[in-house]
């Protein structure tokens, strides 16, 4: 179990739930492998908004070209972790 990654994923889930005003889901019940575009219905403008909140919170800049790759919570969590490690 990667506690830091799990915590990051939980926080991202919280951000997405808040920004998209999702109902019937909590950070704990949000499936980290759910396809955010095809199964949650997130579009590019939602992703851009989430990316800005992530930038605020984690200090991580998400390249615009990377949006299409960020399809699940776990992938976003891994992306943030990678960026943070790269900054160290």
């Amino acid at each position, binding site marked *: 179990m990667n506690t830091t990654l799990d915590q990051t994923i939980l926080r991202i889930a919280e951000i997405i739930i808040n920004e998209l005003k999702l109902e019937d889901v909590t950070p704990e019940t949000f499936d980290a492998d759910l396809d955010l*575009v095809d199964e949650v219905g997130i*579009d*590019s*403008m939602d992703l851009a908004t989430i990316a800005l909140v992530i930038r*605020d919170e984690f200090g991580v800049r*998400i390249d615009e070209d990377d*949006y*299409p790759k960020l399809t699940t919570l776990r992938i976003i969590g891994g992306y943030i972790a990678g960026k943070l490690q790269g900054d160290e």
Partner: protein
Amino acid sequence: MSRQVPQAASWKFADIIAIPTVRDRWEKVRRYFFLRESTYDMTHRCNIRCDGCYYFNGEKQFALENGDPAAWRELMVAEKERGITFAVLAGAEPSLVPELCRICADTIPLGAIATNGLKPLPPEIDYRIHISVWGNDASSKAVRKADDMLKRQMANYHNDPRAVFVYTFTSQNIDEAQEVTEELAKGGQKITFNMFSAPEGYNGPLRHTPESLAKTGAMMTQLLTQYPEAVLFSHYNVVAHTHRLGLHALYSCSYPRMNPSANVGLGKSFRQYRTDLQWDRAAACCVPDTDCADCRHYAAGSAVVTARMYRHASNPETFSAWLDYVDTYLAVWVQGYEKSPNLCDHAVTPPSDGQ
């Protein structure tokens, strides 16, 4: 001349949208982030033939015409099912097939129709109607071979809240925009600006030059200042559409034709249907057969600039300029959406991807 904004890099998005005027505008425009467009050529017929016409360039003009209402209804239902929420009805002249336009509007309630305005569209089709203007009547006569165009267009759409007149600036008609805008403003009409963007292979006189881009920018700014009630535009629109670089170079076009990603956004959902109800990903953009390097088209910018929100959220000034752009695009395209006064009263340099 655009102003270079100091990049403090310390602005958080939360702090930017905490500014009351910015927050209000952000909340206003973000309600429309659900819009997902596709475009449809309705017929290969037109009642005029204009120099430099986008439709009669390339292969799409030779597609068979499917005028079967049942086929159109089936297509629109399928489009709605795959998430399309905004239909753009274009080439060659949609007003020649009002029954098909009605089917589209009945199935997908939000949309816009690009027309030359010579044949009025029935009032029950509640889409925005974009009426193309290419100069004063003398210029229209020369380029479009039709008499009294503006007079006829204004008569057909007098007091029609659906109508937005779209003045396309070529390198040849810049000064005329003054008299045309004045006439439209006096008539209570709304007007926005488009830029002639050369079709592939076009080397005629309408193509813009660095000098004509600068002159067009100055004219747009003057008209925006002079007729703020009639002109749907912003200072950032001027920057984005008259920059020496085209939209793709400035913002990286997100339409499938230039965007290999099919995972999200326009690259995933956008289609451009020909009159035979087929589409080709390799050719799909809002104005097919435009020379991408020269593209400054208003329709392209509406999607491409809007999609680049992230890079504009660097400071309140740049984000306000972006909000003005999005507010303008929504007022131009969405029936019933009212434009607010621009937040930013001067030109701002477009941010790069690396900001």
